[in-house]
């Protein structure tokens, strides 16, 4: 790997780590179920960006793109099913507070 590519990796890497920290902080600090999903999305975006940057600097951009496409497709289904579950919880508890689902039946 050339020195220029290593610098690109480190340059993007700093921002990818910051985006990851933002997502984790959001998930840990919030009690709202929709906001937890938004935090999960931020983490996924950091991972997506990391894969593309690594693919670019290592010359495996086609492989990186195919992996990102798979990640994005799975991400949509995760978000859609999680959103449906959140709507269901909201109908049952009339709240989006994550503390309300601590005592689940069964």
């Amino acid at each position: 790997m050339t020195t220029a590519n290593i610098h690109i990796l480190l340059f993007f890497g700093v921002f990818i780590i910051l985006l990851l920290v933002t997502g984790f902080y959001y998930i840990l600090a919030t009690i709202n179920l929709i906001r937890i999903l938004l935090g999960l999305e931020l983490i996924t975006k950091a991972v997506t960006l990391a894969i593309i940057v690594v693919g670019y600097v290592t010359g495996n951009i086609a492989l990186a793109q195919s992996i990102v496409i798979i990640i994005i497709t799975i991400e949509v289904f995760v978000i859609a099913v999680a959103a449906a579950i959140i709507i269901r919880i909201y109908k049952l508890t009339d709240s989006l507070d994550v503390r309300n689902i601590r005592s689940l039946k069964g």
Partner: protein
Amino acid sequence: MNYDLLLLIILMLAALMTVLSTRILIAAIGLALTSIMITIIMFRLNSPLAGVFELSICAGLITVIFISTISFVKPLTDQEIDDRTKLRMKKYLALPVLLILIGIILIALIKPISIEIPVTIQGLSVREILWNMRQIDLLGQVIILLVGVFGIVVLFRDIQKEAHKK
């Protein structure tokens, strides 16, 4: 590199907008803005196909899913928004400081090292890799698609049944 730095700073600002906004709708729009910034970065890193997916699905479809979910929830009153804004300021005040600190520490500590790349797949297109090399992944995607659709149908069917009973 300067354009990339500008894009990455806007990306972080959009992410902070997602985290710090009191209204969830603005947070969802902030997330869409984050996706748009990632799309532009992907185009700059020679990944147009991944960029198109990111723009159409993450900035489009996922934002629509979030807005649809938000539309099921009762809106907050002005008094609740005021109270929550104060609470959020206390809760998230540490985040920008934490990010600046981590940024400074990373810039100071990280040094360029030589990395050995074991295998490179060059000369193949995305289509060839996706259909010829990642077949198991595609099978997994199909299963997840079916499970996802089935799960959503079951969840919404129960909600409709309860609405009919009422």
